[in-house]
């Protein structure tokens, strides 16, 4: 039951968690058609261990890890969920592995050197994420990035045995399909380093913007903006939405069957990007300079944006203007039936 006939050798996968919330695993088990366990089987992947799924506990797990470290058990894929914790003062004592008192960062570094491919699951493991917010008292970093800068635990030059940099499936949390489709491609051995962007993110989801497919696009076009969170209008001008700048396909593939942040009525807070946690302003407020949002869409010259925004605002139809500040559609589109043929 694998994706290609001929690929009969199973790949091994070990999943560890460190400075995170476990939410990426919880999101991942929302995978559908197939469920995550079946998806692993189809990808030709054998779980050596996963903290939420496996039977092995305590010494049983420690012996799995010992076998990998001794080279007895080959490790094809290492997944880390959660950031690497270096504190206090570089000792790693804020996260010691239960049962061994080894700083997790040491265990992770050792296993990463032995792994065929290393995958950072979620923005914490990729860049440091929410665990690195505020004063970053726990000295959290990503595997190969410290925020937006290459570095982190393994360093920007790190390449795993297969020649890949760390694959950063960023997101807080990840979409289950981002992980499953990466594993499918690894199982088929058709993923190439060039399939990753500059931050190591798989381009199949990171070459899109969250704005793509957003149902508020017409409001965006006219700069018809929501005034409060429940309104239907565009969330960019006032309510902190960064979807036009953020790399991910959230409004194309949808979450839990139906949703996305902007569909749920709240702004995209940029959770797939490095340092999304470090906003100088509130997540729910758009920072402005002289009334103009500071963070303008990617690739767009500012003068053009301002000119077009002024023009489109002036041209906004009543329908769009009135719906933008309502929680339901109050002005439906006018039908075609009034048009008479000749």
């Amino acid at each position, binding site marked *: 039951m694998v994706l290609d006939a001929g690929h009969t050798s199973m790949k091994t996968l070990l999943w560890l968690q460190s*400075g995170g*919330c*476990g*939410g*990426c695993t*919880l*999101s991942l*088990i*929302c*995978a*559908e058609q197939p*469920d995550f*366990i079946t998806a692993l089987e189809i990808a030709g992947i054998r779980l050596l261990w996963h*903290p*939420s*799924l*496996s*039977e092995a*506990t*305590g*010494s*049983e797990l*420690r012996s799995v890890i010992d076998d990998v470290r001794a080279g007895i058990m080959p490790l094809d894929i290492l997944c880390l969920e959660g950031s690497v914790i270096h504190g*206090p003062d570089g000792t790693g*004592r*804020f*996260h*010691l*592995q*239960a*049962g*061994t008192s080894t700083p997790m960062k040491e265990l992770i570094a050792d296993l990463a050197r032995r792994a065929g491919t290393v995958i950072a699951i979620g923005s914490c493991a990729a860049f440091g994420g*929410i665990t690195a*917010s*505020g*004063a970053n*008292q*726990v000295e959290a970093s990503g595997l190969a990035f410290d925020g937006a800068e290459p570095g982190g635990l393994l360093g920007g030059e790190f390449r795993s045995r297969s020649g890949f940099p760390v694959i950063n499936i960023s997101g*807080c*949390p990840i979409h289950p399909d981002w992980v499953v489709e990466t594993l499918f491609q690894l199982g088929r051995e058709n993923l190439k380093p060039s399939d990753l962007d500059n931050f190591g993110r798989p381009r199949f989801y990171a070459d899109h913007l969250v704005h793509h497919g957003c149902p508020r696009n017409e409001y965006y076009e006219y700069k018809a903006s929501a005034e*409060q*969170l*429940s309104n239907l209008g565009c969330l960019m001008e006032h309510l902190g939405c960064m979807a036009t700048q953020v790399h991910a396909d959230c409004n194309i593939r*949808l*979450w*839990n*069957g139906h*949703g*996305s942040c*902007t*569909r*749920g*009525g*709240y702004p995209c807070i940029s959770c797939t990007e490095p340092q999304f*946690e470090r906003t100088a*302003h509130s*997540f*729910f407020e758009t920072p402005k300079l002289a009334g103009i949002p500071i963070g303008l869409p990617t690739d767009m010259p500012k003068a053009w944006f301002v000119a077009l925004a002024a023009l489109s605002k002036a041209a906004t139809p009543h329908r769009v203007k009135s719906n933008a500040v309502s*929680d*339901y559609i109050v002005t439906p589109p006018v039908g075609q039936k009034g048009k008479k043929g000749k």
Partner: protein
Amino acid sequence: MSRRIVGPFNRVEGDLEISLEIKDGTVEAAWVNSPLYRGFEQMLTGRDPRDAIAVTPRICGICSVAQSLASAMALADAQEIAPPPNGALMRNIILATENVADHLTHFYMFFMPDFARPIYEGEPWHDEAIARYKAVEGMAVREMLAARAAFMHIMGMLAGHWPHTLGLQPGGTTHAIDGAGQARVLATLAAFRRFLESRLFGDRLESVTSNGSGADLERWAKLPGPQASDFVAFLRISKALDLGQLGRTSGRFMSYGAYEMEGAHFFRRGIYEAGTTGTLDPALITEDLSSAWFAHRNGARHPSRGVTIPDANATNAYTWCKAPRLDGKVVEVGAIARQVVDGNPLIVDLVRSGGSNVATRVIARLIEIALLVPALEEWTRRITPHEPFFKQGGIPDNAEGAGLIEAARGSLGHWLTIKNGRILNYQIIAPTTWNFSPRDHRGTPGACEQALAGAPVRQGETEPVAVQHIVRSFDPCMVCTVH
């Protein structure tokens, strides 16, 4: 006497290590260690108060909605606003959806797989346990994952996604649904009900919850439908292993009250001890730092005045978990506490006869699933499309607020102080902070530490299976515990 360290403990949420003192094949004493510290309370200091709703859910990926609702309630308390009726209904629906999904995940993915362990080879029920519940390989977990993922479409429809939605706000919820959306949620619930009634219970949910005593439950379990269900498979194994005798605590329970509507709770707020319920005074809650790696350990404080300054060199400490106490005493929280405080006749009867134990903790969770799905249906029907779901409120410059709610695993509280429009102090006590708390200044062990004392250790066991049943019966969430 020998000392043994068990860890890493899996099929619990987050990191857990347990030290056991074992004598003559019995656990004499236990120490529970939460070995991961992330510092969420300090991350929040100085931030815009509204951001707590984005930051606190990320404490925990499995109790994410619970964290965000506690934070929304603390902010609402500070803002002195309340959501419109639709918003209040949606809060309940979204929280109950998470709590039901968590109970289901716990049962199939975290708890049942231990019965397929090789140590039980030869038991008459072992082959069935392997076929159905074995970790990764058993059939039940895949059926559950498919049903759970479909059920979680409710989150996609109402809250954008799960985990880590921003849809729960102090003034209600951010996405208004219409009649079609309402019908779609009801259809999703109906499909989920089918899974529960065919696989988990083998009977209508209303029949499951009509069992008013342990004796009723035993009679019901012999009916042909229930007999083939996963719940009754658990009851059979539980009886064979005498899990009703395992993992006792002092039997003092607390619930903040769950699913608030118009000032009342669907599951009542209160405390329960020795057969009587009482009122809860949240002013009597304190956190004791005597055994935790923190500075400023002198005297226990109410969380509204709590301090969190990590100190990895603190003496006589063995965990990052603080020790919350109610009126200086240990309490147990969770589904069993909620149901006994609410007066659920079955759980009250089981607790009266057997105290708090592994079996009753699991039964209480499953009974709660059977109670909550009909409630979800009812709340969804009561939504009035085209009425408001959300009310805008302003953030005061100076205020205090508390948000006390029930997560799947028990009582969750957020305490917040706002000064000059910024967060001055933010303190969180999570359910597992109560259940997996360390010893306090009197040396009194926390609930799980109490429950582990007396656990049998079989010949040749490294990680005693009884210890695993006891620990997992609490459904611990360690990432919430320390945060």
